[in-house]
């Protein structure tokens, strides 16, 4: 009957088995980064102990093994998001680099009068690069507004009809808001954008490790994410791009590994993915990311999603009972992810996080790289608890107890 995953999963994550300040660690900051299973750590160690070498240029055994591992990782990631072709997978440092590469490459084609459309709920990493692209090209940036207040927040999708004009050349939006937990219907938004000929860019940083993703069913042109929020290593991320589009884009960086031939006068570019991977790539972490894909797919993202949602619903309901608390985000039952964002009338989020830390609980407090949204909502910060496959109901109870203690302290 329970939607929860087996508790035995926790044994896969060595870091969880420690005390913080004398209390068992309760890690609820998965929206910032996730913990790593033994399988991912082992893959990194194995690579460095056995196969480490440079890729794509050596002819010796280690180089061939490293190249095979790196390219197998590309194929594995393609399968993880149902890309049609491994060549559509470009390894980056993370979501931020992915958005920057697309924004810079697309900016070269934009001109005054064109519109870049995004939303008011974007993380700075899917906002600032587009502002820069607008400045560089003379295009105009517009935002789909948020609607409602506090626990009723949503995106004003009716405004899309007005905003999605033929002048819109790019529509960039988050799949799952890191601040609100609001989940957008990516396939529906892409269909509407496609009708006006806009290129679609999806920030899937918060969703890809939690929800099933099928880029072909979604119908997006680009989708970006980071490895470290989905049980993979830091420093590795993915830019998925539709093949036909990728090969028309100028590379954001140039150098070795991405050229066909070079003369003193100039150079020609390889097709994707090498075109976008100048220099020695992050081989080890790509291999670690593939191990994370294996790990998550063995459990299944539908099961992970159900688990996260069950925990978020429990936390949402329990926290909403506390006096002087505002839950900031969509209602339960609305499409949402496994996180709860909230604000106290009497305590600032940083004070809340410091107190929770004393109870061994890791939370995030602040503006969540979302300053314009905070300003619009009339708050300076929220506290966020974000859940993942290894969290359990006892940890929600610990969270609620801790929040109760904080309320009493600051109200007293």
């Amino acid at each position: 009957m329970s939607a929860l995953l087996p508790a035995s999963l926790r044994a896969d994550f060595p870091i969880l088995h420690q005390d913080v300040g004398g209390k068992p660690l309760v890690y609820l900051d998965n929206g910032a980064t996730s913990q790593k299973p033994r399988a991912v750590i082992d893959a990194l160690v194995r690579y460095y102990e056995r196969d480490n070498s440079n890729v794509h240029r050596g002819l010796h055994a280690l180089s061939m093994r490293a190249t095979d591992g790196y390219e197998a990782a590309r194929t594995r990631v393609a399968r993880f998001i149902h890309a049609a072709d491994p060549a559509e997978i470009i390894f980056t440092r993370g979501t931020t680099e992915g958005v920057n590469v697309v924004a810079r490459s697309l900016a070269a084609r934009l001109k005054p009068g064109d519109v870049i459309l995004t939303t008011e709920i974007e993380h700075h990493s899917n906002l600032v690069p587009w502002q820069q692209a607008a400045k560089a090209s003379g295009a105009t940036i517009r935002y789909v507004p948020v609607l409602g207040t506090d626990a009723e927040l949503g995106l004003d999708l009716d405004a899309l009809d007005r905003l999605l004009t033929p002048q819109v050349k790019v529509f960039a939006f988050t799949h799952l808001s890191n601040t609100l937990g609001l989940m957008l219907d990516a396939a529906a938004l892409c269909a509407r954008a496609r009708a006006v000929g806009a290129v679609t860019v999806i920030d899937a940083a918060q969703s890809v490790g939690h929800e099933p993703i099928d880029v072909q069913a979604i119908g997006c042109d680009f989708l970006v994410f980071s490895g470290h929020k989905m049980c993979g290593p830091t420093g590795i991320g993915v830019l998925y791009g539709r093949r036909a589009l990728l090969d028309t884009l100028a590379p954001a960086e140039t150098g070795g590994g991405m050229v066909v031939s070079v003369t003193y006068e100039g150079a020609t570019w390889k097709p994707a993915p090498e075109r976008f991977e100048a220099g020695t790539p992050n081989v080890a972490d790509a291999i670690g990311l593939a191990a994370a894909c294996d790990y998550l797919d063995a459990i299944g993202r539908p099961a992970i999603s159900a688990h996260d949602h069950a925990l978020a619903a429990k936390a949402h309901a329990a926290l909403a009972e506390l006096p002087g608390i505002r839950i900031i985000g969509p209602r339960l039952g609305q499409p949402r992810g496994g996180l709860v964002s909230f604000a106290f009338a009497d305590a600032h989020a940083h004070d809340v996080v410091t107190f929770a830390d004393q109870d061994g609980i890791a939370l995030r407090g602040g503006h969540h790289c979302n300053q314009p949204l905070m300003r619009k909502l009339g708050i300076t910060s929220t506290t966020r608890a974000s859940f993942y496959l290894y969290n359990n109901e006892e940890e929600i109870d610990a969270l609620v107890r801790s929040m109760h203690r904080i309320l009493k302290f600051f109200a007293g």
Partner: protein
Amino acid sequence: MSDLTDLYQSVILDHNKRPRNRGRPPTANRVATGDNPSCGDNCTVYLHLDPAGRVDAIGFDGSGCAISQASTSLMTTQVKGKTASEAEALFNEFKQIVTSGHPPEEMSDLAAFAGVHAFPARIKCATLGWHAALEAFKQPASA
């Protein structure tokens, strides 16, 4: 390990709940703003100096955690009547307290912030208002 009650001493909670000198004094003619980009805290300090260069009016606006709000509130009470160099000396003393955890020899409300030293991530919260105030001293007086 450090207890939170050390950090959130009653004097800090008091200044957080009932901040002193909140708002812009009517005579203020120097202003500076401090931002803490990593957490979004911000603080604006307003000053007016008498002909001898001493603060005769001070106020602040802004939002942030209890530590930053209380520290700024307390700062305004301490800096009133001081010159720029006296305020800077006081700030150095305050910095010493929050980084070392040792309260000063003389009794002072600033000692309430000694507990901050056990929470290095919060030192920048405690010094935000002070930085804004010292910056405000340096601003040219507006008409």
